[in-house]
């Protein structure tokens, strides 16, 4: 969210909520169901594997594209919605480079990893970056340069 606000502060504040939705979309669609499914399995419920792990594709680029396309159909400006949702998803993924996700799945199981910084190591930066992003976005919005 912090990086999305910084991006909108730099590029103009139109469609900010859509970009923010795009940033959280991979976790909403591809992680939350997995966490809930695993909790159900660990509680002893007979949940089929595909209903636990299948959602994970929505956290990968080739799953994000159709997800954003489908979600964009609900918007009045579908093209702008699709662009902002997808940009948000890719921004989200950019901060997962330390986790080695199979970025080209289902065409390859190669795990992309820049290895510059671990996801956990970014945690101390989150809150200051969030406040900086909010401040920058607010300043740009007040200037009316959207």
């Amino acid at each position, binding site marked *: 969210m912090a990086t999305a606000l910084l991006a909108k502060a730099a590029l103009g504040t139109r469609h900010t909520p859509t970009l923010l939705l795009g940033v959280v979309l991979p976790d909403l669609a591809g992680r939350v169901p997995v966490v809930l499914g695993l909790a159900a399995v660990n509680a002893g419920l007979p949940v089929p594997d595909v209903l636990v792990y299948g959602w994970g594709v929505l956290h990968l680029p080739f799953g994000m594209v159709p997800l954003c396309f489908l979600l964009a159909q609900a918007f009045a*400006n579908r093209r702008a919605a699709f662009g902002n949702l997808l940009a948000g998803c890719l921004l989200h993924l950019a901060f997962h480079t330390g986790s080695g996700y199979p970025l080209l799945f289902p065409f390859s199981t190669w795990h992309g990893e820049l290895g510059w910084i671990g996801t*956990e190591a970014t945690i101390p930066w989150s809150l200051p970056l969030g406040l900086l992003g909010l401040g920058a976005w607010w300043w740009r919005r007040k200037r009316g340069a959207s």
Partner: protein
Amino acid sequence: MAWRHTALVTDRSDWIRDCEVEEDCAGRRVFLALVTVMSIEDDRYTVRKLENDHLIQGVHPELKVGETVSVIAGWEGELLVEHELTRHPWRPYKNGLGLIGVALTVVVLVGGFRWEQGVVPRG
């Protein structure tokens, strides 16, 4: 895609479990990232990866049950022996930030959009 992704996850999980009952994996290593410590004994501890618990040999008196760690471990026969342990002291802070993130997401979803012949973002 969902089924293939499920197979990708479960195949790796099955491989680790198979290694725990066979000796074919001796010399190979496995990276258990962001796993939860489930129990601690004198010279070994158990971590939960997805829905499976794995027993790892390693002594860490400061380790706590419920803590999130990342472990690189290698097979010695059927035994998984720790090579490198990374603790994540910022984890509770991250969980707190996660809750803030959930609240912000609700704010964005409720206050950031309106309906006008389709969803229209405010601002």
